[in-house]
């Protein structure tokens, strides 16, 4: 009976976990007071980039925890995301210029299917410093959470 119970319990624990990893920070570089600056999801090295490893064919749900402001010593810098700021690709290596899932809305839960190389996820954004924006180095965290679809 104990063996049967163990089989039941173990059978309910998913063994195909996906592992996301942050690859590249979302880097605006220098911005000027009063001047909006946009980072495209296509811009390698500047766009945020994550990888997800796991078993090919697994479908996953993708959620972002997006900041509304970057911070520096109590000062805030507005950051916004739009409905087309995310792209996802499952090819190996990922194709940033022509991803399988393009123009995705990072504000919503997204879904994708892992390829042989897992997934690569890119994220762009724009920052809108005010005309009186205080100089400084502003940062914020962008958290990506991946879950197996159907759980």
């Amino acid at each position, binding site marked *: 009976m104990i063996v049967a119970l163990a089989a039941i319990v173990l059978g309910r624990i998913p063994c195909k976990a996906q592992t996301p990893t942050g690859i590249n*920070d979302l880097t605006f570089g220098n911005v*000027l007071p009063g001047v909006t600056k946009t980072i495209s999801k296509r811009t390698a090295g500047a766009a945020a980039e994550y990888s997800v490893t796991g078993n090919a064919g697994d479908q996953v749900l993708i959620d972002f925890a997006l900041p509304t402001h970057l911070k520096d010593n109590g000062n805030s810098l507005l950051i916004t995301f739009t409905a087309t700021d995310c792209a996802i690709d499952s090819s190996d290596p990922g194709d940033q210029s022509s991803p399988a899932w393009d123009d995705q809305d990072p504000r919503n839960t997204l879904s994708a299917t892992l390829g042989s190389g897992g997934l690569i996820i890119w994220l762009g954004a724009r920052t809108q410093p005010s005309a009186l924006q205080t100089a*400084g180095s502003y940062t914020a965290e962008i958290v*990506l959470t991946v879950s197996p679809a159907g*759980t």
Partner: protein
Amino acid sequence: MNIKLSINIVCLATAFLLLSFSDSAAKRAGSASASIQATARVVPSQGIAVSPVEVALPDEGSENDWWLWIPDNEDLQISIEADGRPVESQLLTDDRGLTGRSALERHRHNGLIPHRLSFDSLPEGTATCTVTLTNPSN
């Protein structure tokens, strides 16, 4: 009989607890997170603000060299007028005549990159230039 019943009850209770545990463990094991940083460095305009603004161009030692430091921002379009006339500007930045990206990289400072203004289109002495910066994304 009673002993068997007790054992079965204990087993069922254990199974219930294990299944409850496995459900919460499954949720923890089934989702995972990773984070990156969004970073931006707000640089002071150092006398050059969003358009239009007048700046005096200092002579950098050679009468042919007029230098203007322009914010490094790919989103900006830059036009320059001296005394109301358009002035050509180039991203030619190296004292030894080097041009291109390597020269630009060496001269980047505080988020500004230098433009060299064409001598032919500038009046002698100190000119007052109007620098117009426009942001197409606005």
